[in-house]
Structures are given as structure tokens and as C-alpha cells.
């Protein structure tokens, strides 16, 4: 289906940008930035981010003291159950948390050297779409039914790159070709309802990548799609993010997807990061009972037919009045008294960069 457009075949010319545009000079700007100690600074640095929702029933601490980094071109997975704060983290990075009731109450987000939380609304708009692309969960509802596909992709290009209508259209055609939509030029004036779900998600990817962003936030990009299309879309995101050298923050509840896509994974639980490490480390030596539970609940090929799927007992806590001890302890089969008294810190494990928030797997813990 994609053969005649050359989306995946012969290397398409990297989309031409007007000379001097900020994106054209990005590689330089990126490498120049260093931390005080001389090591290269990451693309995205989230420090102690807390996003709370002020509802009638109380303050929901959807994201609480979350810190992580994402390097240039790196793919980071954010994994966890529904309601653990994955999406809110992504929305916080682009400051799209619905306000009211949501509010970023603390922390610092540095994107490419820019203090995101200190930006003006206009400055934030410059960042969204141009430097940070966003792919949403449901492509069926994320496209405006009354506007043509061509217009909706060009919207971002025209807004940020100030191209003429003609130039923008050419770029849209090229993008559509890249995301594997055949006969792109003829489809410019089509409306979203004329596209299938997978095609629409391809269009969303085209929109997200239209201004050659440095960071792509993909919030469960394949949840609304069936499994075969899911694989195609993930492959597309992977290929294009490598081609464009775009860093990806992939949000998913599916560890299988994360394993296939990511360099590193953050496991989130109840608004906190509970384990972080490279994909290999995390799957080889998970150091947190919640991660074990997640891994264990993946269906396996050698499962007995008709066997029940395994799940983690209990429910995640309501994020109003969260306990000051380990948030997973009430569901944890390995919990000791200390787990119900104090919350463990996110601390290093055997391999550098592998951190877990668990008393049991700390050096003096009771699990080896």
C-alpha cells in the first residue's frame, strides 16, 4: 500500500525547511548546551513535578513529585495502570492540563534549555506543535470532522513555519507520503470520515511531525486501534522518530509495546515513578513488586488455554489523601511493617541508572 509513495522504500528527501529556521539550526543548539559539570544536558528535564486537581471532593494528587530526564533522540516509556498520572505528566509538559480544575503546583520542566513553566502563553504556543508534537489516543475524535485533512496538517505548518499556502501544501503531501498514505495529493481535500482509524492515526502522526519537533509525546497512540494496525503505527513512529531524530515519550499501559519501542522505561504508580531503568534491566531484573505484577499480568504464548489472566489484586489508591507510606504496600504481597510506615525513596539498584522505590529490594531489604 505504501510502495508507490516511497514512504518506507527509497529514502525520501528530508523535508526542506526554509534556511535559518530554528529547526534547521537545532543540532548545533542542542549539542552546545551542557550542565554545570560539563556533561551534555538532556532534551527534557522534569524535576519534582507535581500536578494536582482541585475537585469538590478534595485535592487529587495526579502527579506527585515526578522527576525524569529524556535525552535527544531517546525513546522513553511511561508505563502504568489507568489513572496513575501518565497522561497528566505529558499534558503538564505541554501545559495543557485543563485549568480549572488542574494546576501544576510545583516542580520544574526544562525543555531544550527553556524553562517551560515560566513561559508566557504565547511562548508556550510557539513550543507546542513546533518543538513538541503530540499524538493523542483516539484518532477518531482528535481530528475535526468539518475540516479537510490537508487543512488540519497545514494548520500547524502555517502557524509555526509561516510558509505560503502552496509551500505548506507541498509539505503536507510529502508528510502524508512519509506516513504511508497513498495518493496523498488527491486526499488533501478529503475529510476525516473518509479515512479508516489507522489512516487517521497516520494523519495525526503527520500533524505531530509536521514541524520536525524535537520531542514527540505519544499518549497511548495505539489503544484505539486493532492489533495489526497497532503494529504498523508503532513501526511508523519508530521509523520516523529515528529519521527525524525525534525524542519520544511513549505513554502506554502495555509493557509489550514499551519493550519493543523504548530505550528506557519509567514505571508509574499512583502519581509517582516507582521504577526506572533501561528496557533490558527492567525486564531482566525488575526491582519493584508492582513491576513484577505488571510483567506477570502480560498474557504469554505458553499459557494454558482457558486459564484466567493474572492480575494484581486490589485497586490503586484514590489520589485524594494519599498515604505517607509506600503507595503500593496495601496491594503488595511482600509488604512488611516498614512499608506501611514510611515511603521508600527512589534509590539506585545494582546497575547505574536503574532505580526503584521499594524497601524490600534495597540493599538491606528482604528480597534478593
Amino acid at each position: 500500500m505504501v510502495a508507490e509513495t516511497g514512504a518506507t522504500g527509497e529514502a525520501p528527501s528530508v523535508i526542506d525547511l526554509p534556511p535559518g529556521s530554528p529547526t534547521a539550526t537545532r543540532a548545533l543548539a542542542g549539542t552546545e548546551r551542557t550542565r554545570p559539570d560539563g556533561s551534555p544536558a538532556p532534551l527534557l528535564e522534569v524535576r519534582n513535578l507535581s500536578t494536582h486537581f482541585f475537585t469538590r471532593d478534595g485535592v487529587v494528587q495526579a502527579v506527585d513529585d515526578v522527576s525524569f530526564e529524556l535525552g535527544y533522540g531517546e525513546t522513553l516509556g511511561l508505563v502504568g495502570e489507568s489513572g496513575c498520572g501518565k497522561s497528566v505528566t505529558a499534558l503538564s509538559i505541554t501545559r495543557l492540563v485543563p485549568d480549572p480544575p488542574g494546576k501544576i503546583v510545583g516542580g520544574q520542566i526544562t525543555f531544550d534549555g527553556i524553562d517551560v513553566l515560566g513561559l508566557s502563553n504565547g511562548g508556550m504556543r510557539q513550543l507546542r506543535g513546533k518543538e513538541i508534537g503530540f499524538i493523542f489516543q483516539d484518532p477518531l475524535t482528535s481530528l475535526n470532522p468539518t475540516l479537510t485533512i490537508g487543512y488540519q496538517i497545514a494548520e500547524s505548518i502555517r502557524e509555526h513555519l509561516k510558509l505560503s499556502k502552496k509551500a505548506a501544501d507541498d509539505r503536507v503531501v510529502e508528510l502524508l507520503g512519509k506516513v504511508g498514505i497513498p495518493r496523498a495529493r488527491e486526499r488533501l481535500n478529503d475529510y476525516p470520515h473518509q479515512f479508516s482509524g489507522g489512516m487517521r492515526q497516520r494523519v495525526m502522526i503527520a500533524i505531530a511531525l509536521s514541524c520536525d519537533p524535537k520531542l514527540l509525546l505519544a499518549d497511548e497512540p495505539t489503544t484505539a486501534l486493532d492489533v495489526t494496525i497497532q503494529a504498523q503505527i508503532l513501526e511508523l513512529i519508530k521509523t520516523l522518530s529515528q529519521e527525524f531524530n525525534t525524542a519520544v515519550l511513549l505513554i502506554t499501559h502495555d509493557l509489550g509495546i514499551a519493550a519493543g519501542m523504548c530505550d528506557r522505561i519509567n514505571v508509574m504508580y499512583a502519581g509517582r515513578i516507582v521504577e526506572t531503568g533501561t528496557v533490558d534491566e527492567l525486564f531482566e531484573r525488575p526491582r519493584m513488586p508492582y513491576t513484577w505484577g505488571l510483567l506477570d499480568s502480560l498474557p504469554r504464548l505458553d499459557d494454558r488455554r482457558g486459564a484466567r489472566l493474572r492480575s494484581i489484586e486490589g485497586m490503586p489508591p484514590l489520589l485524594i489523601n494519599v498515604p505517607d507510606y509506600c503507595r503500593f504496600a496495601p496491594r503488595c504481597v511482600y509488604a512488611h511493617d516498614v512499608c506501611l510506615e514510611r515511603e521508600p525513596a527512589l534509590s539506585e539498584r545494582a546497575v547505574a541508572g536503574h532505580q526503584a522505590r521499594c524497601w524490600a529490594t534495597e540493599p538491606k531489604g528482604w528480597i534478593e
Partner: protein
Amino acid sequence: MATNTAAATSASVRPRAAMGPWREALGRLLRNRLAVIGLILVILAFVTAILGPILAPFPYEAQDLKGVLANGGRPVPPGVGGHLLGTDVLGRDLFSRLLDGAQISMTVAIVVQVVVLLIGVPIGALAGWFGGRWDTYLMRLTDVIYAFPDLLFIILLSVAFRQTFFGQALNGLFLVFFAIGLTSWVTVARLVRGQILSLRETEFVEAARAIGVPDRRIILRHLIPNGLGPIIVAVTLGIPGAILSEATLAYIGVGVQPPRASWGSLVAEGQKYIRGDSHLVIFPAVAIALALISFTFLGDGLRDALDPKLKGKQ
């Protein structure tokens, strides 16, 4: 490659015509018989209104006193002396006066709805988009307007401004149109607010914000077009109300001044002769009724055509 041939065949089989949602709605509208009748009558009404002075056999103020005298001082009955629909007691040709009245009624239809849109859409959009305090103030304002008796408001306004330039414009009609518009934007404002409130939560709006589209463009390009269907329907269905308001006002003597006549004032004049010369009431009343029915048919048809929930049911 198999995929390649599949793409080629599907492309040759499917004729590619860009069918936008608007064009589809038009198709649905044209398949609805009543709506088409309404549409034709509406177009006819506008054509008559525009061509009225040309089509009219007599000037609307010309008196055929001879005809009246020949009839013993009574209005000329229909069909006599070249008067298709007869004359009034002053010998003025009723058909010509109806054509002139069409001009007034159709102007009401347009001007009032323009005023309604100009006031209702911005107020509804601001209230819906910004919410909070804006929403409270603007919606309480609409509540106040809504609660105020329309007719009283219009009459007060007409009387208060009658002597000003504002009141004299367009032979006094401008003020009437404006006053009617000023009392009927409430429905549209509430409708627009509701549309915006529900649409602003949709994911495509979030997606638009995520690519940095400014608020103004989100409202104009993403929200209004999606909420346009119900607004169009409300406006179309609001026209009969406006025509009726004007007729009511004309009937009680507010608005258009003699010798010009609107359909409403023709009915008002004619009712004095309803026993002997009922044609003076019947023909203007039929004109009003036809106009109302045709706009209502059209409005209903538009609602069916534009309502996404009914899509594919015909």
C-alpha cells in the same frame, strides 16, 4: 507487489469527489420533499421582494378612485378593473401592496437575523469559551433579556427613539428591525454557548491546542463550524417569528407608516372590512402564513440534514 496492485485498482474503482460534510448535508436537504418545497417558496419570496416594484401592476400608493366610486364607494373586489386581488377602500391595488409588503417582510427576515447573529454568537461564544465569571455575567444578561416582555420592550424602544435619527432611518423600519433583533438573540446566544461548551472539551480542540493554534482561530475555525448546524436551524426557524413580530407590531401601528404597508398592517387595515370585503384580510394573511410555513419547512429540513445523529437514516 500485491499491495501495489490493490492500491491501483481501488483508486481506479473509486471516483474521488470531495464530499464535505456541508455538501452531504445539502444532498440530504434536497432529498427531503417538504424542505425543497419550503426552499422553493423561500426563494420565490425573496425574488418577489426584490423584483416587487417591477412586477407590480400599479405603484403601491396609486389610488383607483374611479373603480371605488363605480363600486359604490366600497373596495374593488378581486379580478375587477385589472386589480388581480382587488383594491382597498382607497382604491390602492392590493396585489401591488402585497408585493411591496413582501419587501418589508423579507428585509425583516434578514436584518433581524443578522442582528441576532451579531449579538448572539459573540456573547454565546465568549461565555462558553472563557466560562467562569464571563459566563455568569453574560448568561445572567441573557436571562434578563429573556425574562423581559418582548413586545413591551419593542414598543418602548420604538416610542423612545421615534424622533431620533436612529428612529427615522429606513422610514422607521430600522428601529423596529433592530428592536426585534435585540429581543430575539437570546436563543442563539444560549445555543452557541452550549455548542462551545461541549465542543471545547472535544479531543480535536485539545489536539489543536497541542499544535499551538491560538484561541481565536480555534473558536473561528474549529468550534463555530462544528456548531454551525444548530445555529443555522435556529436562525431559519427564527425568521417566521421575526416576520410575525413585525406583523404584530404593524397590526398595532408600530413600525412601517402609511402609505407603505407591510403584510401585518394590511391585515390591520383590512379587518375593518372583514364582513363585506374579506379579500383585504385573506390575501395578506395567506401571504404571511405561506412565508411562515415555507421557512418552517426549510428550517425543519435543515435540522434533519445537519443533525449528525440522523445521518444515514434517509
